[in-house]
């Protein structure tokens, strides 16, 4: 009697549990499926396709063909009909160097801005952040044209640079690698200001006073009490700036001139000019690998500076 009672109860429990599991599964199905489908359809499949293309042969009209080969990677490394040329290697190195310069410039400009906004009255802060973000609501191409007008030969800035002897007469600051650095930095400034501001805002100003009270000079108070606490924001900003800057197409295309090409332009040309899809795909893969290496390095740096904490995503 009691035995059968227990069994009934157990089966009741099992039933309840399986019902819960079904409900859980249905819940997952509805919440996860749209996102997963989106990612598979528009990220995973195209990436697989791109990788496949990179290992195919270039056809007569620039479209990929069988058989599979490593031809495009050889071309990317600089081996062409006329023997080896360093052009693509230079483009890669230039991309890395421009990314480094632009990121450094953004850090130098954004750090004081973010600090200043965090010290402003609370009611003004959203407005000031908006002022930082608003330019990025304008089309990239239009902003690049704006810089052309500012830096072209004969403009006040160019004349000033000439007077200082920084550039040869009538050369102008645009087109040049300098213009590209400036354009990249300008473009990605908000991506650094926002995470830095978030870090500064969390900071208790009493900590700065505490550091000074504990015999730190103003500089030491900054270095030991403030800077380490803004590091997560800084590194997040570096990742947010450096990755898109590395793959940037518009800015080097418009401001760089013939010698300002970056990896993004190399890839784009292979597809748009219809000249060589496999080479373009190989370039895209190279960009992906470089980005992953960069991210990995940032994680390591973040972990070391953050005292073993995960600082970078």
């Amino acid at each position, binding site marked *: 009697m009691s035995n059968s009672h227990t069994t009934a109860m157990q089966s009741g429990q099992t039933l309840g549990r399986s019902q819960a599991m079904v409900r859980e599964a249905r819940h997952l199905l509805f919440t996860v499926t749209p996102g997963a489908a989106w990612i598979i359809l528009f990220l995973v499949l195209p990436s697989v396709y791109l990788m496949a293309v990179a290992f195919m042969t270039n056809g007569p009209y620039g479209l990929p063909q069988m058989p599979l080969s490593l031809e495009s990677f050889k071309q990317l490394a600089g081996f062409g009909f006329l023997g080896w040329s360093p052009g693509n290697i230079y483009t890669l190195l230039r991309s890395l160097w421009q990314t480094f310069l632009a990121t450094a410039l953004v850090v130098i400009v954004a750090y004081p801005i973010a600090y200043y906004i965090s010290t402003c009255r609370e009611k003004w802060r959203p407005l000031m952040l908006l002022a930082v973000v608003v330019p990025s609501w304008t089309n990239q191409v239009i902003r690049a044209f704006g810089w052309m007008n500012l830096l072209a030969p004969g403009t006040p800035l160019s004349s000033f640079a000439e007077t200082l002897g920084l550039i040869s007469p009538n050369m102008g600051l645009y087109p040049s690698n300098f213009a590209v650095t400036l354009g990249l930095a300008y473009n990605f400034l908000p991506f650094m200001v926002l995470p830095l501001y978030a870090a500064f805002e969390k900071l*208790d100003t*009493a*900590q700065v*006073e*505490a*550091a*000074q*009270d*504990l*015999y*730190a*000079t103003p500089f*030491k*108070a900054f270095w*030991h*009490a403030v800077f*380490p*606490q803004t590091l997560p924001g800084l590194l997040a900003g570096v990742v947010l700036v450096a990755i898109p800057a590395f793959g940037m197409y518009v800015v080097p295309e418009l401001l760089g001139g013939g010698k300002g090409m970056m990896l993004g332009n190399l890839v784009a040309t292979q597809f748009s000019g219809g000249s060589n899809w496999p080479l373009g795909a190989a370039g895209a893969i190279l960009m992906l690998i470089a980005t992953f290496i960069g991210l990995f390095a940032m994680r390591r740096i973040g972990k070391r500076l*953050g*005292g073993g904490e995960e600082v970078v995503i």
Partner: protein
Amino acid sequence: MTDFTTAVDATGRADSAAPSGEDTGEQSHLQRGASSITLQGLHKRFGRDAVALDGVDLTIEAGEFFTLLGPSGCGKTTLLRILAGLEEADEGQLNIGGKDVIDVPPHHRSVNTVFQSYALFPHLSVRENLAFGLKMRGMPAAQREQKVAEIAQFIKLGDLVDRRIDQLSGGQRQRIALARALVCEPDVLLLDEPLSALDAGLRSQLQVELLRVQKRLGMTFVFVTHDQDEAMVMSDRIAVLNGGKIQQVGAPREVYERPSNAFVARFMGHDNLYRVTARNGNRLTTELGELEVEQDGGGDLVLIRPETLDLKPGHVEGVNHLHGRIAERLYRGSHAEFRLELAGTTLQAVVNNRGKHMPDVGDEVTVLVAPEDLVTLSE
């Protein structure tokens, strides 16, 4: 000259403390810094209208537990920040340990602060927090470690030193903040409402602990609070501030029992203030009736402390015998608080429960006022 006297005072206190306490072993390594502080004519205003300090003169003795007490906005925190060097005075002089430090930046003052928010560095471990001041002063790592170990033992931090800041409770943070300041062996320790963020039980426990630390070190402590009970428990002397001015300086008993004006009386929790309309020798005519005082200090108010009153049932005639009716009784076990109606006004009385008859609401009673417990003061 002053330096010398300070040094003597400090050693004197240290020596006298040594034989009495059982903690002599613990205090042997920590150096007891104790400096006197002199303030003269300190003025500070924020913006055009907000006057924070309006001419403050004050002398704080070496080794004293000195409390700045007052409501919010009275200037007590500003005064403390000027002592720390975190705020600059507009006018006035400041001497710490006989040295004029008014223009000395905070990182060159041998003064440390326990902040209200504790201001611990969240990116550093407890151990690194404790060593921060020593590191900034350029002490070698080995020596720092030793000092940190000493202070950890002194404040009984135990295994807290190996935790991260975000793993600590409020009370633990408070103790770390105290240890972080003490390990620097300052001449003066400043405490800005260090216990205000804690719940009542923990608070009274830490009050006792703080007091013991101060007595054992003989260090000059300047403590800021808005809580008069806390001020009375802790302090050797209290300065009551209001509107940027010092209202009264004195030992807790003086400030509580002989407030120098109505503000101090009210702030210390007294409500029984009555207008004096006429005086004839030691006999005052007041709102409550004729009252005889032992010492008439002048002023148009008389203060009757509720706990000095005695209640007798019925109508008894005599000098300083007032007659009224119980309007309210709050029974608190160890004592009871009464609100009496008499002479068209009210009077608070607190009577200890000695197990005798306790009057009830509606009873007619006679209130006995001792002439020596009356204080006259002005608004």
